[in-house]
């Protein structure tokens, strides 16, 4: 069974993080929500594996009840 990576897998996390924040600059709340939703769909399709995606969904909801 495929397992979600939980160790860092991006060479330069700082660079990605700042580009992610930059992506949202100047957007309204609603536009940001749309951009985030697109990101999730694109990345989920890249992952593809439903067992990994289910682990992602579970972690994303952790501590929120």
């Amino acid at each position: 069974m495929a397992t979600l990576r939980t160790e860092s897998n991006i060479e330069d996390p700082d660079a990605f993080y700042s580009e992610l924040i930059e992506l949202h600059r100047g957007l309204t709340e609603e536009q940001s929500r749309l951009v985030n939703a697109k990101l999730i769909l694109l990345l989920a399709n890249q992952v593809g594996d439903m067992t990994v995606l289910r682990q992602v969904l579970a972690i994303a909801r952790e501590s929120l009840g």
Partner: protein
Amino acid sequence: MSDTAPRYPYRPRADQRAPRPAQHPVIIVGAGPVGLALAIDLVLRGIPAVVLDEDDTVSVGSRSICWAKRTLEIYDRLGCAEPMMARGVTWNRGNVFHGDRLLYEFNLLPEEGHRFPAFINLQQNLAEEIFVARAETLAGDGLDLRWKNRVTNVVPADDHVRVDIDTPDGPYALRCDYLVAADGVRSTVRRVLGLDFKGRVFEDRFLISDVKMRAEFPPERRFWFDPTFHGGRSALLHRQADDVWRIDLQLGADADPELELQSERVVARLRRMLGPKIAFEVAWSSLYTFQCRRLERFRHGRVFFAGDAAHQVSPFGARGGNGGVQDADNLAWKLALVLKGAAPERLLDSYDAERIPAADENILHSTRATDFMTPKTAASAAFRDAALSLAERYPFARGFVNSGRLSRPATLDASPLNTPERDAFTPVLRPGSPAADAPIRTPQGGETSWLLRELRNGFTALCFGDDGAAASVGALANGPVPVAVKRIGPGALADPSGRAAQRYDARPGTLYLIRPDQHVAGRWRRPDADQIRSALERALALQE
């Protein structure tokens, strides 16, 4: 439409003057597509059926319009497919728009070599006229269709069911071995037995109209998310027979039904959609909210529920009418064999085991489609918009866009009647699947025919290769529940395109045992007679 609807005369029966309630094997409540399909199927199997309908005509207004390939295959077995094909609008393609841009189109029947198209559209009232005409040809064989017979009460007992009926000549009562409620969403039988639906109710209101117009749109399903003519909502356009078009417009949860049904308002909405040039006439319109729910069980002793009386779905996916006809297809052969004493009563339990998962599948797809179309939260609206805005350029996102997942026949995977397979096959036609069609040629004269036409109303051993495969059926061919042998191979049916062998993943020696409803009961690479006998017994619930 109602001005041209046929009237079927009420005719008093001798039963109404009988001193005691007359006894019938099967009484069906409701002469809609489900009730009539069941009645026709039973009578073709030699079981007389009484059908009670409170009205004296076909259904009024927009109901089912799309009949799926599997349903047409069932209708063909019942002798109704040809007039439906002649009358209906054939279509295989759908288009999905976002705003005014075409996002993508899809073909629901991408491969050749099927007798029937993915769908035809034929408004339910016209389909019912065809069923009634077919039912009338079977009157002499025991199909007793009683108009203006309104069921007022149902009293189940251990060894029969009593039905109280009102007619223009006053009340009378009947008794039957089995009662089938095919009396729709507002089922009287369900109400008098005090049974409730469980599931979800959606709050969004939809305006559904049938519009008569001469328009040049192709016979495709067209679905719009957020079109400029109906901003922020969804719209559906679908062609029916006789220049009638179905239009569904989402109005939202707070739409005022009284206001929205004012004819000027309806016409104005449709005018915005259809443009200034097209002349149209509103034949019928109504405001709907949708439910996705079902009865907890479809069998209650000697009473069975089928179609909308048993389960309800939203219209996006054409899963109501098609699912209901498949209920009838599933129940008819079982009732017939039990009534003939060829199978034990517990075979009837498999109706629940098979049709409840099928209903759940329809409810699941219908719920998901309705959720996609009517997002309830800011987050779900954002995901919907994200999928829509990606779908035109990035094909992966089309998989998320849900304008209705159109009816597919259920594969009865969890059925206790299936013989689990041990031989290696591709999964497509695994036990529980409806048998696939393919073009074939008959040995006499080499006429072109279709495989499903060869599978008639009984059990069939479909085998591939030379006579050796067929020989293992042996004495079962003449048993109490006979198994017809159909062979594709030298000196028998020919498979000129190779599609039968390909669809059935067949090699010489491969044998499929196919049920009377054309579902696969078991399959083997080279079975012996014991394996086939055991699978037949299992499919008849003869094994404990």
